């Protein structure tokens, strides 16, 4: 993308922020990112509406992890039992009922861990270079909406955002592609 201007608008409520996003959506501006101190449903719905995204792909990580876990457990329990073929208390060599527990636990373990990895991967964390337009208050009590646009669009978008209820809009020249963007 070519360098441009980043409009950093600050909102005091997530409703307004969401409205801002919808406004941008209507204006076919999609090169933005929203900041919030908590996972506001309104904002998330608005963004996924705007970006036309489905649900987060992290769930596939979890599913894969879970299945891997079950398979590992089957291999481990049944495999080692047949490796040794020991008669313990007259129980069958492959005593499925007890092994189910191992399968369950490993499913949870691997599913959970791969979920964490998926989350970090898709949120491109850890990332210690601060994204363009990030303000520390966005982590506390304010909601931010950072739009990147060419100079000629600035005024239109500013008014658009003000109508949505932005209480303050700052401009910042974008040096490089700073807004994280992946899915």
């Amino acid at each position, binding site marked *: 993308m070519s360098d441009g201007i980043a409009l950093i608008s600050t909102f005091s409520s997530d409703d307004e922020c969401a409205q801002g996003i919808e406004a941008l959506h209507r204006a076919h501006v999609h090169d933005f990112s929203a900041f919030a101190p908590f996972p506001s*449903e309104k904002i998330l*719905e608005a963004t996924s509406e705007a970006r036309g995204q489905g649900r987060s792909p992290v769930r596939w990580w979890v599913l894969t992890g879970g299945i891997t876990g079950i398979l590992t457990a089957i291999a481990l329990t049944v495999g080692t039992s047949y490796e040794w073929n020991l008669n313990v208390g007259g129980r069958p060599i492959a005593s499925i009922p*007890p092994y189910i527990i191992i399968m369950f636990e490993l499913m949870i373990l691997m599913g959970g861990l791969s979920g964490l990895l998926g989350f970090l991967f898709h949120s491109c964390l850890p990332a210690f270079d601060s994204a363009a337009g990030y303000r520390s208050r966005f982590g506390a009590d304010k909601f931010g909406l950072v739009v990147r646009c060419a100079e000629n669009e600035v005024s239109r978008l500013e008014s658009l955002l003000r109508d949505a209820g932005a209480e303050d809009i700052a401009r910042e020249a974008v040096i490089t592609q700073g807004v994280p963007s992946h899915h």
Partner: protein
Amino acid sequence: MSANQPASLGAAAVRPLRAPVQVNWQRLNTIAIALLAIGLIGLVAALGAGQADRVWQTWLVNLLYFMGIAQAGVVCSCAFYLVQGRWAGSVPYRLAESFWLFLPLAVVLFAGVFIGRDHIFPWITHPLPPNRTVWLNVPFLFARDGAALLIMALLSAWFVGASRGPDAVRWTNSASDIEMPPPALRRLAPIIAILYCFTYSLFAFDLVMSLSPQWHSTLFGWWFFATCFWSAAVAMAFSAVQFRRLLGPGNAFTAPTILHDYGKLVFAFSVFWIYLSFAQYLVIWYGDFPAETFFLLVRLWHAPWSPLGWLAPILIWVVPFTVLMSVRSKKTPRILGTVAVLGLIGVWDLYYILIVPALSPNKLPFGWVELCVTAGFLGAFILCALPGLRIVASAAAPGADGGE
């Protein structure tokens, strides 16, 4: 509505409805009466044909089955009050309470168990050692269970009355502001819930476990009322799907997440059910006490019962679990409806294999007798449910204040 995914998706899953259909209550009514008639005729015929054993055993199966659905439905409503759930207005409450009218009838039908007791309870024909007859003897058993049924019926009546009252309805429909449900319900709900656990454990021990007197499982009572609860959940899910179809666009059941919520209810308690079942199976499998293992072996690992034995967990857990795992299928009426119907069949099958093998471990009696008796009960149940369902219909009708 659910905290963590956009509602839009639900809408996407739901196919747009055709023009509004008028619910034909009359047809339902006649069908019910017809079933009842079949039942009565079959009953007489079977008794005439000397099939008393099968008649009364099936009688017990059906009594427990429908009674369970009706009572657990009421308890479901209690639970909604206890967690102060108001996400779908009053409709879920109405639906949960809609079957309650079967309860008073159940008290009457319980007489059938008394009449057929010799065909049901082996400890009557083969007396137990004296120290056990203290608990297992005819007068005491029927006295306590009858009384329990009666009390539950009365309390439920009281509760449903209060719950359909104006304040309650107002409270359920005012999701936004924070206040307590009406005092009567605040007090009744926990009482009924607690009594439900104790009385249905009692029925589990008296009317199911005592059929194989050597056998016992401490979890059985808990497991039994959990099963009843699940059967009520699927019954509600099923009705919800039907209403959604019948009541036309804009009815309460078209709300994006209500099916999803029923789906989640069915899913969650199906998982809980398999957990309780596994907890019993594993302990008995591992413990290796003949006095415990035979109960499972007869039902799961030996002809002729094993197919029916495995059918129950498949319909109650495998199908709902695998099918309803995804949000989409939870929200798709047809899928949810099918799962619910299968679930209802599964629970009936479960009660059947709990009761009948205890009395004929080595042969599987199933035929017209069972079908007729069941048909009769179904008819009676529908008749009892109709008034409640009509109320649901009116509450959920498009534009009614029952919606969100």
